[in-house]
């Protein structure tokens, strides 16, 4: 019962957030001065021609009608058609989404691969130079703006050493080796910056574990510090880590938009930038809606993952 209630409540929050976000997105994009009719017709057009095209595109209808028309279609999965290119918004989004998902997904994995071991060192050796070094590097890492880190990487690995292409993208299906070569620098850049943030959380969570009775007991029966931490500490620390990771998703997405621009990746970020500049509002709305949806889904998944990580929660929910 409790579980069902929790799911229902979660679903309610999900729906309300989604509708709220759709209103916000619509209002903000409509508030942008300028419109796609002007972009389409260029600087030669007369005001009459612009007005005529606006009417053709349905841009002269009352805002509430335009909103209901748009959101009603979004609910059934129809994001509309780009006024500029005539392509459906979905057909523009999907290939871009693939790029951004690779970038964000691999960066999350990369940041965990970096942050967990480093955080463990920082926690266990917190009173010796290794721990201090890790913490100091994390501080330094956080101070680096993503774009600057990206430009630096390009300068070193593409321009000087010429090991990797400076930017661009090749789909995985086309050439896996080239795909990997194009993604290394963006993924590493984003991972390092995210890892710098995560290390602190890993360290704090693990330091707490070090003060727990079960850790002391594990040590007492002969586990080495690292072993005890791996066996008994990580799962306990995982709860707060997953929470932070869930919250990080939105900041990774923002970071991804910056990284996409530095590395000229054809992801959602560059689609969004171009669409805003050209006032292709249906594309803007569709893209932002997609991003909101992704963040909402991930935070819902994070909530449910607690149940997987922590058996106690399961016990409570199943009424045992």
């Amino acid at each position, binding site marked *: 019962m409790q579980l069902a209630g929790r799911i229902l409540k979660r679903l309610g929050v999900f729906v309300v957030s989604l509708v709220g976000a759709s209103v916000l997105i619509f209002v903000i994009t409509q508030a*942008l001065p*300028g419109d796609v009719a002007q972009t389409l*017709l260029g600087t030669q057009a007369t005001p009459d021609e612009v007005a005529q095209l606006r009417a053709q595109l349905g841009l002269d209808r009352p805002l509430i009608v335009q909103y209901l028309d748009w959101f009603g279609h979004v609910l059934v999965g129809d994001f509309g058609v780009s006024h500029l290119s005539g392509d459906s918004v979905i057909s523009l989004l999907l290939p*871009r989404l693939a790029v951004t998902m690779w970038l964000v997904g691999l960066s999350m994995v990369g940041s965990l691969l970096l942050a967990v071991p480093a955080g463990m060192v920082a926690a266990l050796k917190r009173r010796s130079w290794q721990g201090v070094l890790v913490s100091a590097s994390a501080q330094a890492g956080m101070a680096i703006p993503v774009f600057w880190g990206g430009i630096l990487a390009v300068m070193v690995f593409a321009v000087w050493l010429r090991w990797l*292409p*400076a930017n661009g993208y090749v789909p995985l299906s086309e050439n896996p080796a080239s795909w990997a*070569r194009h993604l290394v620098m963006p993924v590493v850049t984003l991972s390092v910056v995210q890892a710098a943030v995560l290390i602190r959380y890993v360290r704090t969570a693990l330091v707490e574990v070090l003060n727990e009775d079960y850790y002391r007991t594990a040590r007492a029966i002969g586990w080495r510090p690292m072993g005890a931490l*791996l066996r008994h500490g990580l799962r306990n620390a995982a709860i707060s880590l997953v929470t932070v990771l869930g919250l990080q998703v939105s900041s990774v997405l923002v970071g991804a938009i910056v990284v996409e621009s530095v590395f000229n990746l054809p992801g959602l970020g*560059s689609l969004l930038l*171009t669409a805003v500049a050209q006032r292709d509002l249906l594309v803007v709305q569709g893209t932002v809606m997609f991003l909101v949806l992704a963040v909402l889904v991930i935070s819902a998944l994070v909530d449910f993952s607690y149940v997987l990580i922590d058996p106690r929660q399961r016990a409570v929910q199943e009424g045992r």
Partner: protein
Amino acid sequence: MSFADASRRPRSVVIKAVAVVLGLTLGFGLAGCTDGGGATPAQAKTLVVGATLEPASMDAWHNPDASIPQVLLYNVYETLVKVDSDGALKPLLAQAWEISPDRLTYTFHLNPAAKFASGNPVNAAAVVANLDRMKADAKLTGTLQAQLAPIASYSALDEHQVQIKLTHPSLMWLYDLTTTVGMILDPAFSGDLNNATAGSGPYAFASHDKGQSVTLAANTAYWGTPARFDKVVFRYFLDPNAENAAMLSGDLDIISNLQAPDALAQFSDTSRFTVINGTTNGEVVLGLNHTTKALKDLKVRQALTMAIDRKALLDTAWNGQGTLIGSMSVPTDPWYEDLTATNAYNPQKAKQLLKEAGYANGLTLRLRVPVVPYAVKSAQFVASQLRDVGVTVKVDELEFARWIPEVFTKGDYDMTIVAHTEPRDFGKFANPKYYWHYDSKKFQQLYANADAASDEAQAVAGMKASLRYLADDAAAIWLFALPNLVITKNTITGLPANASSLSFDLTSIASR
């Protein structure tokens, strides 16, 4: 849950993790080797060109975007006549043409060898079919409709001769034919122009990878000098730094137009790069709104012009790259004259003129510019120089998508700065509805007479007189003409020096 088996020494987990990371790194490294190795064999010859504005479609007839002719004009679609790098008219599909003494009748002799990529001949019937199609198309862009307007009638005289009659003589009309309006489409084509082409040029559209690149492939059946590359890729960059980095790392063969001249220093290694520094059609105009009370006064307009040291502005804002011009014309125009001495820099005289005009106690003007590098940098310089003669300038930076409705359409501004990149575009000053609202009967008369003059020499002389009038009347302030800064690898040759048309003309480019 695979954290660690209690019976085993957990240290091995760490070792495993390290091994995985190392493995991944090595994997990428190896991948790098295979990728680099696979691309070298002398198979397909590819040219990679960096550019900034990505076309939304391949349909130049219904989309005024200059990024479309940049890729397609002359490369994919050919015109009867073209302009060369120096701005001169050259034969293309027409091997010769005659103009009647009254300059109303044009007879074009088509090259009998010319054929479309489909194999169909480019004959008189095809040219007539193109004119029929455009004339009947109500959705054609405004520019193209205006350029077709002078045509009174047209007909095929025989298989290879077309005759076009105009309603009035026009010097500009033949030049217009070298642009998008003159592109000849295969009449047999029935597909979607948004993502297919059917021209007679050395290349044909192959693919458009949205957000990334447009690829052209050689037209193996080309009727003229064969294409020198099997593939040409136009790669698009939102961020100029990314484009420069791609050039420096060797991923690009050419940067089609360097976005910021201060990046030139990065390409100073002459053993790797060649820098081409030519001219474009882009006049950077400090536009004056002639409906603003103070700016209706010639003395004020002259004073503003004299208050700005344009040489210093070019050095400060654009690294000294570009050409100083004194009117709405660039060196590749047949009627170009150096008019920089008109209303030359003279702040003392400027102050005096302002006093005579009744603005001894100062004048406040709004300078609303789009957020593009040349405009923002120039605006700061202009504001500081005008302050020195007692004019307070309120600079307001607008995103381009906002600049168009507010400044361009509504005319809500006193001064603005924008580059006018279309070729031979000074006739815009004859249109009082255009955003400058310059309504000079004298200029309109001069321009109309020059365009319709009964012989070419007279027409060119008339154009010169019109341009001089614009400069004397300080109809606008011409800051400079944008340079054509092209960077190429040293192995690339044959690039035209000047960007005299909207085309990025690939036809003469070769690779050593």
